[in-house]
């Protein structure tokens, strides 16, 4: 998944984080206690509320003194009518509680790095449930309709919309085999063996085969919510992430079919061959139908977004509404809602993104992340509460056997399937990969909700099932979730590379695509690339014309990528405040001149961006440059450390290197020069362009590089000692972050080399500094060394 949804610990928090953490916990407890009486307060329709004068005026509540036989009271100045707002009030109190908990976890320093958030949330749920029980109220249980209709879709939509299409389609075969065959294997293995155990064990012999198989189907599905929650934090490499995650998404179809099949026939008691055959057909219908429904809605949404040029404000709404309708429509027909949602998001994304404004894009991104985050938090908390709330029937044999069988089935399944899959894969899956795939098969709330839906009449052992399901969920989330991170480190599994796509890589990826297509054609072998190329051409010729507004429909991918990159650079440049960049601006003094020696530099080294876009860029710059000026007057670490939620965190630090070049371009853009600017000199450009706090510029960059590395303020060689104290802090931080960032990227020459221009002494100091990652460095730990 692209960007972490978690908050980084506020580095410059003025308040002591631990104190605020305690404050938070206390306030949350108070909040929780508020929930109890309010949640328990019965509605006025059932029992009269004491001291609610309105009651006496009649149930509708507002005014109306129609009854003539009442004694006239004084007009109520203040009245209490809680019942009126109870439902939304309680809901939002829960949401508030969930969000405050999330905040709290990240304020407590070491906690979030050891324990995954999902575990903490379940524990909170347990506590809440416990408190409820103590007070004597019935705590709310995670109702299945609430879960499936409201809590699950945002998470899935978030996953589907931001699904990395390329790795997904490249590994689609593998993912499908794991999802379909793997889940089937798991269900039957667990169900069958469990039935055998039940027969052997005296007390359980009432459990029939079909209920066992149904239980197997419920418990064997890998849960996308849990997988996302845990994998998000371990930053594993893209391949493994997409394999496990893709599997968790696509096995929904299998689960749906198996669940309905067994549930349907558990009453009848036997399954015939016809039923099995129908089951297979049903599977195809469910899966493909779901995808089709999603695709249709996706196309509709893309088409709608073509016309939103004049109503930019409601653009995000279309994305959300169409996707949710896709989900609901699929659920109407008992098709796979998850697959519909994924298909909808994946289909509409390229077209919608070409049509909507940049702000809408940001809005969509943040809303999706926000909703899915809240949903996930609520799900885990409710899981905890439901555990305490539900009445359980604990049966040692059943539960222990279930857990063991789950693990064994998963391991066996993964190993045998990988053996089969590796025959067809180019990049084989190693043992380490297999281990992670097996270990990452977490169960979660979907299993619980499916179990909850069971009808007690047909399934008298429902309570036992639920207990077992919850135990398995707890086991996988706590044990596997907590240990997967150290295991990943221990096994030295490849982590996610934080590199950003460079223009060169983009060019060559496209080049490679065409090259391989050409070779295939020469061979006469209509393979993978050939069909992909055909699809692309079809897309370009027909589909894009329909779904993308205006001239952008003809824009080739490379150009779109390039423009996007330029736009991002422009925005980052301005957003992060020009002043910061000066110290670290040395990195590359390479400019346009250096690569075109023989002839005079081109008149316009700029792309011919359309007027509209130029206007946009200029507007952004104008708006923000002002802020930059103001900001720099009173800088501190808060404003300079850009909002870490922005996924441009990496980009910003990366792009800072290129600031000089960009500034030049921007100046040319704003001035419409046809004469090239004078040869750029890094500090002077910065000084001239961004009319910012002169004090920031008065220090020579070399001096800054001097002072930057040393952690202790070393006044040995700075040229202007008075500026050291102020700039040293933040520039050091920026420096460190940039070093860490760049260390992880493909740029091999250490930025250290760029920083120090003359002094070897400075390099030494830099080396010492670089070996100590700053506080923010723990977030993105790269395996590659900073220095060669």
């Amino acid at each position, binding site marked *: 998944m692209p960007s972490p949804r978690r908050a980084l610990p506020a580095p410059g928090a003025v308040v002591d984080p631990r104190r605020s953490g305690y404050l938070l916990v206390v306030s949350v407890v108070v909040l929780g206690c508020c929930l109890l009486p309010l949640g328990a307060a019965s509605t006025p329709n059932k029992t009269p509320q004491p001291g609610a004068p309105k009651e006496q005026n009649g149930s509708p509540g507002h005014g109306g003194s129609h009854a003539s036989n009442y004694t006239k009271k004084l007009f109520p100045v203040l009245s209490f009518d809680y019942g009126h707002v109870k439902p939304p009030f309680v809901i939002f109190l829960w949401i508030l509680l969930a969000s405050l908990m999330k905040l709290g976890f990240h304020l407590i320093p070491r906690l979030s790095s050891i324990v995954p958030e999902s575990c903490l949330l379940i524990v909170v749920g347990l506590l809440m449930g416990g408190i409820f029980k103590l007070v004597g109220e019935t705590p709310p249980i995670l109702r299945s309709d609430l879960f499936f209709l409201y809590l699950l879709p945002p998470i899935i939509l978030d996953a589907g919309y931001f699904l990395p299409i390329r790795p997904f389609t490249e590994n689609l075969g593998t993912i499908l085999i794991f999802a379909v065959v793997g889940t089937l294997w798991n269900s039957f293995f667990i169900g069958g063996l469990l039935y055998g155990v039940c027969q052997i064990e005296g007390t359980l012999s009432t459990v029939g085969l079909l209920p066992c198989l149904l239980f197997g189907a419920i418990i064997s599905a890998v849960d996308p919510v849990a997988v996302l929650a845990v994998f998000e934090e371990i930053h594993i490499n893209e391949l493994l992430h997409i394999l496990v995650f893709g599997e968790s998404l696509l096995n929904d179809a299998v689960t749906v079919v198996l669940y309905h099949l067994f549930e349907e026939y558990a009453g009848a008691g036997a399954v015939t061959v016809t039923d099995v055959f129908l089951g297979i057909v049903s599977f195809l219908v469910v899966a493909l139908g779901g995808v089709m429904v999603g695709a249709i809605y996706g196309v509709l949404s893309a088409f709608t977004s073509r016309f939103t040029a004049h109503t930019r404000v409601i653009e995000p709404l279309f994305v959300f509404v169409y996707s949710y309708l896709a989900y609901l429509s699929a659920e109407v027909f008992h098709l796979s809602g998850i697959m519909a949602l994924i298909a909808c998001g994946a289909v509409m994304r390229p077209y919608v993104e070409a049509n909507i404004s940049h702000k809408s894009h940001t809005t969509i991104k943040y809303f999706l992340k926000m909703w899915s985050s809240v949903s996930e938090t609520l799900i885990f908390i409710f899981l905890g509460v439901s555990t305490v709330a539900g009445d359980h029937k604990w049966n040692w044999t059943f539960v222990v056997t279930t857990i063991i069988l789950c693990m064994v089935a998963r391991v066996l399944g993964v190993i045998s399937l990988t053996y089969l899959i590796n025959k067809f894969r180019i990049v084989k899956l190693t043992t380490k990969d297999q281990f992670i795939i097996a270990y990452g098969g977490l169960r979660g709330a979907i299993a619980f909700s499916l179990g909850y839906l069971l009808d007690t009449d047909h399934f008298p052992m429902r309570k036992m099932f639920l207990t077992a399901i919850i135990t398995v969920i707890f086991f996988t989330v706590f044990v596997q979730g907590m240990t997967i991170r150290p295991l990943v480190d221990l096994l030295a599994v490849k982590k996610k590379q934080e590199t950003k796509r460079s223009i060169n890589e983009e060019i060559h990826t496209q080049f490679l695509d065409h090259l391989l297509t050409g070779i295939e054609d020469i061979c006469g072998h*209509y393979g993978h690339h050939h069909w992909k190329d055909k699809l692309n051409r079809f897309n370009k010729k027909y589909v894009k014309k329909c779904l993308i507004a205006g001239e952008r429909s003809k824009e080739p991918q490379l150009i779109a990528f*390039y423009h996007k990159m330029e736009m991002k650079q422009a925005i980052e440049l301005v957003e992060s405040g020009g002043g910061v960049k000066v110290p670290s601006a040395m990195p590359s003094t390479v400019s346009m001149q*250096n690569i075109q020696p023989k002839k005079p530099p081109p008149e316009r080294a700029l792309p011919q961006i359309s007027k509209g876009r130029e206007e946009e860029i200029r507007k952004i710059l104008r708006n923000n440059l002002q802020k930059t000026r103001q900001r720099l007057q009173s800088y501190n670490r808060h404003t300079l450390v850009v909002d870490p939620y922005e996924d441009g965190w990496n980009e910003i630090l990366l792009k800072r290197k290129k600031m000089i070049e960009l500034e030049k371009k921007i100046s040319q853009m704003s001035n419409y020069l046809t004469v090239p600017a004078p040869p750029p000199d890094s500090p002077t450009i910065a000084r001239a362009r961004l009319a910012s706090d002169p004090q920031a510029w008065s220090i020579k960059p070399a001096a800054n590089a001097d002072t930057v590395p040393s952690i202790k303020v070393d006044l040995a060689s700075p040229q202007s000692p008075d500026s050291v104290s102020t700039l040293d802090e933040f520039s050091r931080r920026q420096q460190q972050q940039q070093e860490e960032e760049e260390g992880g990227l493909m740029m091999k020459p250490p930025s250290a080399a760029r920083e120090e221009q003359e002094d070897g002494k400075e390099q030494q100091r830099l080396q010492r500094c670089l070996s100590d990652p700053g506080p923010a460095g723990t977030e993105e730990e790269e395996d590659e060394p900073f220095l060669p």
Partner: protein
Amino acid sequence: MGSSQSAQEEQEYRALAERTGFSLDQIRNLHKRFKHLSHDEETLRKEDFDEISDLTPNPIRSQIIDAFFDKRNFGGNEVGRVQEIGFREFLTVMSHFRPLRQNLTEEGIERIRREKLRFLFNMHDKDSDGTITLDEYRSVVEELLSSSAAIEIETATAIADAAMLEVASVTVGEMAPGQVYEGITFEHFLEILKGVEIEAKMHVRFLNVDTTTVRCGKL
């Protein structure tokens, strides 16, 4: 075909298999394809490639075709171009697209990476001087974008310039205003494309190579 001929061919095939790493089956298939393309002649010419209709919409077809006639791709150290190639050369060029074998050591993988990247490099470096100059890179980008109509030359130029700039900043890092970045050398090229897993991506599955009939490859 007489048995003696096929025996001779077998021997040839074996030698080729040794050299290029293909299996005998694959070599037989490719030879059939070669004969089909060359109309049963011994050598292939550029015009023969032009007849492949599927290749026409490909934006970089001329570069691909040129690559087949580029001596640098024939395994030796020669430079220059030829007018026609035999089956041996055809096979050698094709061998650059073999899928990665299993059980290779790190060095083996690195070696294959270099080979494949060398092939790409040669495709860009048209004048065989060992560096990709700005002009050559520009023409690469232009060709890539040539498939879409209404492309402005300046955009292509700008993209190529930006890309070149990136290469320079990444590999060299620091240049005084007066210095000149000559062009992308092979080492720089390697560095720039470190992120793209060439050895895994640059391959074609040769399992179902068939000359006249069309068969979809396995995913």
